[in-house]
């Protein structure tokens, strides 16, 4: 099992290496960071983990990340289209500043001499430097017929994982192929179960573990009566019965409190719940989290990003530090329904096409920007106005499903039909 995964990872890495040179491609990892660069204000345990992550490379890191315990995939969906051009800033692209005279990020934190991080994301820089966080640039739908600039349609097909020919959501198809026996295996750490879980009845939505009890003075007797009555209703009562069951389980062993503080945002709250589930031994396989960090920046983008980005980065950083060594068994990936226009509309950005994805985890080959940068010149832009996707987002997800959740390429193909997530398309961002 382990060797198969290692082999796949290796294949993927060689696949990337075979690609031709591109304007913004990073051909080497960032300079080896000093171990002291990471850690920050965290506990000593976390710092040592981080140092280990920074020092550890190659097969040792790989075996630690994959082999020992069941892996957890955390999927953060940035709702309403994050402008990744101003998050992962291609400041080395000569067209960037021209297209965005008023909203360009003037002094990004340099990552590799070509890309820089928006200073609002400074909390993520130490993780990047220690090799535990990376990016795949210019992601989206490779097939043009699936590209769409409607938030709602684009979210629904991104969560389905295909424009057509599939039923339900992609995470549901993952769960249907997973053998985990935990009742918390599919966890929506948000206020509702997202469409990506549609078609899998076992997903549980939790916004706050501290609230996870009805609180009646009738206590367990009321829980039991709810379970019985809802059970008698069959399908229409299933979610209610499942809730009562969960309340009972958590009564018996409540999840631990966080060891760090999280921003008071949907993402902060969601990642706090995600970390509690992992640390509490609930053995989640897939966790969905919603980032509602004011991404739909048609106007006033600079000030809105200045307010939102520190919370976005802070939530990811808190999650990383809260989990400590357990981060070895976790891979986090972000996605959004589309990127925003390369050219600003004077103060903001309208709906566009390609975006980028962030990857975090001890098993991530971080400290670099993966993928292929298509450039922002007029001829390189999709329909003359949008960043062109060069990596299908399903290839990124497929690489994680195979490399970390142990699914076979054939199963990945069932989840994302059409070959877009096939090993040949992987970018080799896993250790």
């Amino acid at each position, binding site marked *: 099992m382990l060797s198969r995964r290692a082999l796949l990872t290796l294949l993927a890495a060689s696949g990337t290496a075979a690609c031709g040179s591109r304007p913004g491609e990073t051909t080497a990892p960032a300079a080896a960071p000093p171990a002291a660069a990471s850690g920050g204000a965290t506990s000593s345990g976390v710092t040592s983990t981080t140092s280990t992550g920074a020092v550890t490379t190659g097969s040792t890191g790989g075996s630690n990340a994959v082999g020992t315990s069941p892996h957890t995939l955390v999927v953060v969906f940035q709702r309403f289209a994050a402008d990744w051009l101003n998050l992962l800033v291609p400041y080395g692209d000569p067209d960037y500043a021209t297209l965005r005279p008023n909203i360009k990020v003037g002094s990004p934190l340099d990552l590799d001499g070509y890309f820089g991080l928006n200073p609002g994301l400074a909390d993520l820089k130490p993780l990047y430097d220690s090799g535990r966080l990376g990016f795949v640039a210019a992601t989206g739908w490779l097939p043009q017929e699936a590209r769409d600039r409607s938030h*709602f349609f684009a979210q629904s097909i991104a969560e389905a994982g295909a424009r057509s020919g599939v039923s339900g959501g992609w995470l549901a198809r993952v769960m249907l192929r997973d053998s985990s026996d935990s009742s918390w295996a599919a966890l929506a750490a948000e206020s509702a179960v997202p469409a990506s879980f549609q078609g899998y009845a076992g997903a549980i939505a939790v916004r706050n573990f501290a609230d996870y009890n*009805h609180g009646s*003075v009738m206590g367990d007797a009321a829980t039991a009566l709810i379970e019985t009555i809802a059970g008698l209703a069959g399908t229409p*009562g299933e979610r*209610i019965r499942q809730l009562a069951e969960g309340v009972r389980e958590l009564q018996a062993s409540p999840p631990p409190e966080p060891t760090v503080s999280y921003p008071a945002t949907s993402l902060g709250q969601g990642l706090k719940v995600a970390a509690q589930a992992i640390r509490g031994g609930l053995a989640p396989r897939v966790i969905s989290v919603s980032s509602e960090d004011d991404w739909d920046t048609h*106007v006033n983008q600079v000030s809105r990003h200045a307010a939102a980005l520190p919370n976005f980065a802070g939530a990811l950083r808190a999650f990383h530090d809260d989990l400590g060594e357990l981060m070895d068994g976790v891979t986090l990936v972000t996605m959004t329904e589309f990127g925003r226009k390369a050219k600003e*509309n004077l103060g903001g950005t*309208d709906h566009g096409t390609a975006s980028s994805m962030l990857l975090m985890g001890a098993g991530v080959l971080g400290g670099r920007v993966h993928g292929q940068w298509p450039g922002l010149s007029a001829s390189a832009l999709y329909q003359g106005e949008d960043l062109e996707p060069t990596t299908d987002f399903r290839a990124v997800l497929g690489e994680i499903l195979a490399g970390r959740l142990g699914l076979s390429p054939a199963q990945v193909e069932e989840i994302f039909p059409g070959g877009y997530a096939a090993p040949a398309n992987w970018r080799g961002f896993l250790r």
Partner: protein
Amino acid sequence: MMQRRTFLQLAGYSALYGGLLADFGRSAMAMEPGEVAGSDLDLHLLRRISFGPTPASLARVRAVGRAAYIEEQLAASDLLAETLTAALYPLINTSGSAIYLSTGAGFVVNIHQLELQSAMLHRALLSSAQLHEVMVDFWNDHFNTYIRKNPVPLKIDFDRNVIRANALGNFKTLLKASVRSAEMLHYLDNWLNRSGQINENYARELLELHSLGKGGGYSEADMKALSLILSGLGFITDLPFSALAYGTVQFNASQHDGSAKHFLGVDFPAGGGEAEIDRALDLILAHPGTAQHIASKLCRRFVADDPPAALVERVAATFTATGGDIKAMLRLILNSAEFEASAGAKLKRPLEAMVGALRACGINQVDQLANTNLFGIPVAAPNGLLFNSLVQAGHEPFGWVPPNGYPDSADYWGNSNTMLYQQKFLVGLVEGLSFSYLLSDPISFLTLGNSVATGVTRAKTPRKAVSNAVANLLFTPLPEAASAAALAFVAQDADPDAEMTNTELEKRVKGLVFVLLASPWFLLR
């Protein structure tokens, strides 16, 4: 139709495995939504066109019949409820900009928001014109704007003049009113859509969400043309110098793109000016895609998450034939065979579940009326249990940020988190302080409401208490196995027919009220 087929399947299943399915509980495992909802069509109608049946509304529909009741509701208005609401929440009848000034330009920002939100809840709870309130909720979702995007409370004017005024009127009037509202122009950024700085936000959502719908027959080029057509349409914004005029919609010709356009197959010559907007809206409204989209959303709201295509076609034809008459479309839907066959096909959203629970309990006040303002005048404290619970369940009135409005499907709402906060609301309702004076002391129950829960707790024996609770809260019998479980919960080791001490009985019956209102027998609609 569906119910019969389900029944036959169940009967066949039971006959085949009759020996294994010894108790009712096992066979009930195969229940379908229609069976849980039951076959009482009067009840079905009230679950759909109101925020929940009450003894009075059920008596009325039984007395006049469903068809006549539908007509009553289509014509209904409730002056008393309006007067009460305005007395409790007076800010809703003033203009948003005036309120903003009188409260010190933002120092007391959320009072007006909370009053509007509370008024919405109060009307849903109290008004006898229930179908009107349901449609207000429907259109507020369809033309969603987020109450906190603009600190100036233009939402108050929008809710009153655009949504409430047209909720049962004509869709064309409603859509045009929404386009000429400062609230919408602000929410979807059109006030910043200017020639040379085109902002596509409003044009895209107007086509996709408000009218033709995704796949309804427009292209990306149409969207871009519409964004040019709408450029220059904004409103007076320069606070504080023209504060009283703030929110007055105006077309600024110098900010309008004067080029020639091509929209929905029609040429717009250069220099068309403001007249282009109504011309474009007329094209949108006459387009079959708009009829189809509105019909489909109405059928999703009133019939099923995945509405029957044949019904949607007939409703769309009615839209076209009547020029967008909302009452005509509702009349067709509510009297259709598809509607009758759909009992239990919908799940209550938190608003309907929580307000419906209050209505079932005979409570017709939003909780906590005891506060006084700076001058000692009693005012409503809007952020009580009901409001806070809706926030936690993700269904705060006017609190949905993106422009598509709150989802209208069990896929979205049928999750553990939503159910959890509904349960916590119910526990707060029956055991907490917010409504306790209503539940336990009829003398302080000031309105004409009939507190069912109070009646339930007056029963002397467990058996009587259970049958009262089921009859008064659910209006429909429970399966025998569920009743038996409920009785065991209340009686525990005692004789179910023996009188029990008030304190103990009340505690257990309140628990039962909570469980019943959290059960599928209450939550399906």
